[in-house]
């Protein structure tokens, strides 16, 4: 029973902390977001150099062989910095699918490029009707010569605008919501018949609606086994759920600590507002929510690293339930206690609030994960 980080893990954490502190202040982030792509290629290069893009990949694939705990460390810090670079989309989602389902050739073609920062990817799994159900896939892949033709609409694909390639879930057999019969495909970003409608998201990211209109891919584009994509998706999304949850924990930490600091400085009625007992107890509640979320984060990461199965799934869902509730409370109260200042674009607090709000509905809201937690 051990909650401490290893030496390597501590080094990883330190390197992220340093970057957030020195190179990613709030103004820098705003400038980065205002750019054409909504993030900085410069930063991305730095991520590659620092080895962060290699974290979850096996050493034989050029990675550093990190597990869920390492992902958690990275994402918690990225969450503290509200980092907009598409780490989640490329490394965890698209990279995760490759990691678990890719054959040697596919890994060779993509993982090295992800790790060195030369290729970005995205996972196109959600659809307009699917809500949070991974098996709800209407996009079809029909046999076409040696390969397949893909048609369908993929919704809110995070990192879509910058993706050089997509991992797309499509139905090769089975009924509309069957877990069986879903196949993952590697699709080039500039494939004929693939079109994107790109847009910013309310929480500062970029995403796309991706339309596939008879997009032709070869048989070698199949990632994993034909019809066996659901299990891969579920594991990747569980890891990604841990990841956004950790991001939320990082955000909550900033929210509660900044609120405490603000309350010590903001004077009303002749004293710092942090002297008012009601606000004190509110901040204690924020602190407690943060700590509880952190506990569930540790649990989820450790369970995932013990091996993927029912116990890990349950821990991930429990974590997401906690994050949904805690994140909402902490974000809302941070805004409330900052008063008007919390409402402005100029101050970081509102941006954390927005990200925390959106994380609640990413990969399943509280209702979804409560049900899953109870059922596993």
């Amino acid at each position, binding site marked *: 029973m051990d909650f401490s980080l290893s030496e390597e893990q501590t080094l990883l954490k330190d390197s992220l902390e340093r970057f957030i502190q020195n190179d990613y202040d709030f103004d820098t982030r705003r400038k980065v977001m205002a750019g054409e792509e909504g993030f900085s290629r410069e930063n991305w290069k730095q991520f590659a150099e620092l080895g962060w893009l290699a974290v979850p990949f096996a050493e034989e694939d050029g990675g550093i062989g990190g597990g869920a705990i390492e992902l958690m460390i990275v994402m918690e810090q990225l969450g503290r910095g509200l980092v907009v670079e598409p780490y989640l989309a490329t490394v965890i989602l698209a990279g995760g699918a490759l990691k678990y389902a890719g054959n040697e050739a596919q890994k060779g073609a993509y993982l090295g490029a992800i790790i060195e920062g030369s290729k970005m990817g995205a996972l196109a799994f*959600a659809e*307009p*009707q*699917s*809500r*949070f*159900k991974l098996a*709800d896939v209407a996009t079809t892949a029909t046999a076409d010569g040696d390969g397949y033709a893909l048609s369908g609409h993929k*919704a*809110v694909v995070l990192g879509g605008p910058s993706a050089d390639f997509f991992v797309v879930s499509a139905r090769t057999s089975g009924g*509309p*919501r069957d877990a069986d019969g879903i196949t993952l495909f590697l699709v080039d970003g500039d494939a004929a018949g693939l079109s994107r*409608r790109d*847009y*910013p*998201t*309310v*929480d500062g*990211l970029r*995403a796309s*609606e991706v339309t596939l209109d008879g997009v032709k891919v070869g048989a070698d584009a199949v990632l994993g086994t034909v019809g066996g994509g659901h299990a891969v998706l579920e594991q990747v999304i569980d890891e990604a759920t841990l990841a956004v949850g950790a991001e939320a924990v990082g955000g909550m930490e900033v929210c509660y600590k900044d609120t405490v600091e603000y309350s010590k400085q903001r*004077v*009303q*009625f002749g004293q710092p*507002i942090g002297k*008012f007992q*009601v*606000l004190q107890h509110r901040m204690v509640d924020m602190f407690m929510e943060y700590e509880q979320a952190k506990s569930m984060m540790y649990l989820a990461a450790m369970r995932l690293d013990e091996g993927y199965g029912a116990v890990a799934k349950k821990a991930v869902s429990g974590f997401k339930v906690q994050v949904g509730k805690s994140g*909402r409370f902490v974000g*809302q109260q941070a*805004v*409330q206690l900052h*008063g*008007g200042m*919390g*409402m*402005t*674009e*100029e101050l970081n607090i*509102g*941006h954390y*609030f*927005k990200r925390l*709000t*959106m994380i*609640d*509905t*990413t990969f399943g*809201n509280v*209702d979804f994960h*409560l*049900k899953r937690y109870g059922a596993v």
Partner: protein
Amino acid sequence: MDLALTDADLAFQAEVREFIATYWPEDVRRARATSSRFEESRGHSPEVRRWIDALNERGWAVPNWPQQWGGTDWNPTQKYIWDKETAKAECPQLSAFGARMLAPVLYTWGTEAQQNEFLPKIREERMIWCQGYSEPGAGSDLAGLATRAVREGDEYVVNGTKLWTSGAHVADWMFCLVRTESGAKKQEGISFVLIDMKTPGITVNPVYILGGIHSVNEVELKDVRVPVENLVGEENKGWTYAKGLLTHERTGIAGVARSEVQLARLKRIAQETGMDGGTLWDDPAFRTRVTELEVDLEALSVTELRVLAQVAQGGAPGPESSILKIRGTEIGQAIAMMTIEAFGYYGMPYPEQTLIDNEGPIGNPYVMPTMKGMLYGRASSIFGGSNEIQKNIISKAVLGL
């Protein structure tokens, strides 16, 4: 004890509905409700102008004002019907700062000249007002304001900074609290003055609210010269007027009718949102939470009726009136958050206006206005006396603590 409407009330309700159907028809309503131009939708499209003109022609623009200034002779039930029906149809309202905040001060304490000059223009929405109350150092502690007005001959010279001034960038005039004397108590020595926004020395700096919304501003006042005839009431008594005004309009503050519209919309969205081959509305967990909100809202709606009935019988509103704002904002915020949640991943897209103009909305057309409303709505529990301040007030005034 009964909730029945009289025949006269019912006839009036029919009349109101017909008026609304004529001047604020369903298609106009829907276009405005799905508009992603959140801020601008507060301004004056031709449809809004037509509605306001029709109100004035019919004599229904300012039901709560005294009749001599264009108010109606409606009884409280009729006023309630009016509020309910116009809210249900999401009809535009006159800018609140002029019609609801300033006007009562003017027709109660203003000079005849001020009344003649300003009230008709407010009623016709030909003059837009903003409210210069809060300051960087005076938020919840409003009486701590520092903007000074020094009398020089027939003028006040005003210096200071106002913050969170809604609509200052489109306003013609501002009503403003300024310190004219350093009294023993900070509530003393405050005066209530009217300032033409074109006066030299006024700089309006936008403050962008979450989501990039431009609605509030910082207003710098540097040696702004205000004629003394623009003082309202007595010098140094401004706090009294401002406070009276804060408690003036009890009903409506709860936003019950607006929340009812939003809740109905949330239900419809849930019924149209796919889930597991059915819809989100089939999900017992989601449905339970919506139903909980519905009960909360119904309770608040009856509480509002109780207040209204007291006023109708000439009584003062009882202590229950004090809960309207707190519960109203809590419920309104909860509905907005649940609607965002209902959208699922489609709550995220936040495209630029040009993209929407060219290619239409992404996902549900209600996403953008809901998101902007949700973000902006966080202010409802902060501005105008935060919910914490409201509880302090109830604690003292109602519970005697």
